[in-house]
């Protein structure tokens, strides 16, 4: 059984048919990059995997749980699926440590000392052990995004969804975030990224999914896709972003 499995998923925003029957299977430990033009449905697809968007037809199964419009089920699902956002979405009134510990305390019901220990470990992992008591507003974008990753990891998810997580960063800060992702891959974490970082998709990603017009237009191993795109649409897209 695949970790993530989408079966003929259709999604409409009113009359706008955004996803037109998407089939996709992702295995545990894979690093999958979803690429495509803006408006092709990449982010929507990602957000269907953890219930942030509802779909109208088809089925999504993640970690053997069906993703449905049900608050309780989605809450259970959120223990398996972590998400990191383009705009970080750190909680501005909490310190970095409090951000990371919030869900371990409230959701996993860990003791404060246990939560603190875990938060310190995770912050060390993302290279921010000295920022435990800092507020997000005093960190750079790259640092904020690394805190956001640590915060997601605190729930020990099986898959981490990354929605354009380097798009809001200054170019010189992108590297430090991607390095954390590489480290996660080395540890066997399943990563699904909507990304514009083609170098990362090629060098670190295992597989690339090219979305076009609400469909999975072309998919394959990363090196294959970049070296040898099959469809005209992917060729022109790659030519445009290079």
């Amino acid at each position: 059984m695949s970790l993530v499995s989408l079966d003929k998923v259709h999604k409409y925003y009113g009359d706008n048919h955004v996803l037109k029957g998407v089939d996709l299977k992702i295995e545990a430990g894979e690093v999958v990059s979803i690429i495509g033009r803006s408006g092709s449905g990449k982010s929507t697809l990602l957000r269907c995997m953890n219930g942030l968007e509802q779909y109208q037809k088809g089925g999504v199964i993640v970690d053997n749980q069906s993703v449905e419009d049900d608050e309780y089920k989605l809450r259970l699902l959120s223990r398996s699926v972590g998400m990191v956002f383009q705009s970080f979405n750190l909680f501005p009134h909490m310190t970095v440590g409090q951000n990371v510990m919030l869900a371990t305390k409230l959701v996993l019901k860990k003791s404060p000392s246990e939560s603190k220990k875990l938060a310190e470990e995770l912050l060390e992992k993302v290279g921010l052990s000295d920022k435990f008591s800092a507020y997000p507003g005093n960190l750079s974008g790259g640092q904020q995004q690394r805190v956001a990753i640590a915060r997601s990891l605190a729930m020990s998810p099986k898959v981490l969804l990354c929605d354009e997580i380097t798009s809001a960063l200054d170019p010189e800060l992108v590297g430090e975030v991607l390095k954390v992702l590489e480290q996660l891959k080395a540890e066997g974490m399943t990563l699904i990224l909507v990304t514009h970082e083609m170098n990362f998709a090629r060098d670190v990603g295992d597989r690339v999914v090219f979305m076009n017009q609400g469909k999975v237009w072309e998919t394959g191993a990363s090196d294959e896709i970049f070296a040898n795109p099959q469809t005209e649409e992917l060729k022109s897209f790659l030519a445009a972003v290079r």
Partner: protein
Amino acid sequence: MSYQLDFPSLVPFLPQFAAGLWTTIELTVISTLGGLLLGTVCAQGRISKDTWLRTICSCYVEVIRNTPFIVQLFFIFFGLPALGFKLSAWEAGVIAMVINLGAYSTEIIRAGIDAAPKGQWEAGQTLGLTRRQVFWHIILPPAYQRVYPAIASQCIIVMLGSSVVSQISVEELTFSANFIQSRTFLSFESYIVAALVYLLLAILMRQAFALVKRCTFKNPSL
């Protein structure tokens, strides 16, 4: 035409002023705490998924914000006993003030909540928090921070508005001033003293709110 101000004649009445001042402070503190609590709960009601709860909360806010405070006060003090609720003047005054501030602060707090980026809700949701947990832990504190100046002003308005409850003979500051001027016929002096005390109270409240702000919101401003 000349008028000789005569403050010394008011000195024997200082205890009355002090008692009135104390009642005003009491009314203000209780109604500020109660009103903000009520406003917070109703603000949560106004963004609830439950249509009935949303409607009830909006009706409350609209009715209170679109009727005069003194009418609300009379309704509670003279109207409710007709329905069998017996209230002392002080109790009626506090209830009226809490209900009044509750309605205004509902709207103020809701504005702060509305300004929360959607991503904050989503981040909380993807971490597995319940909607209620997201509201209380993630959305509400920055919402307060955003609208804090407006809340502070509204609480001061309620403090000044407490003078109205003298109309149902709650013995607060304005009531004292009334009483003293009717005894001494020094109306000018009495109300000058009352006005200065209100002014001082308002300034002190601003200072207190600023102090609370410094101690509570330690993060860089939003």
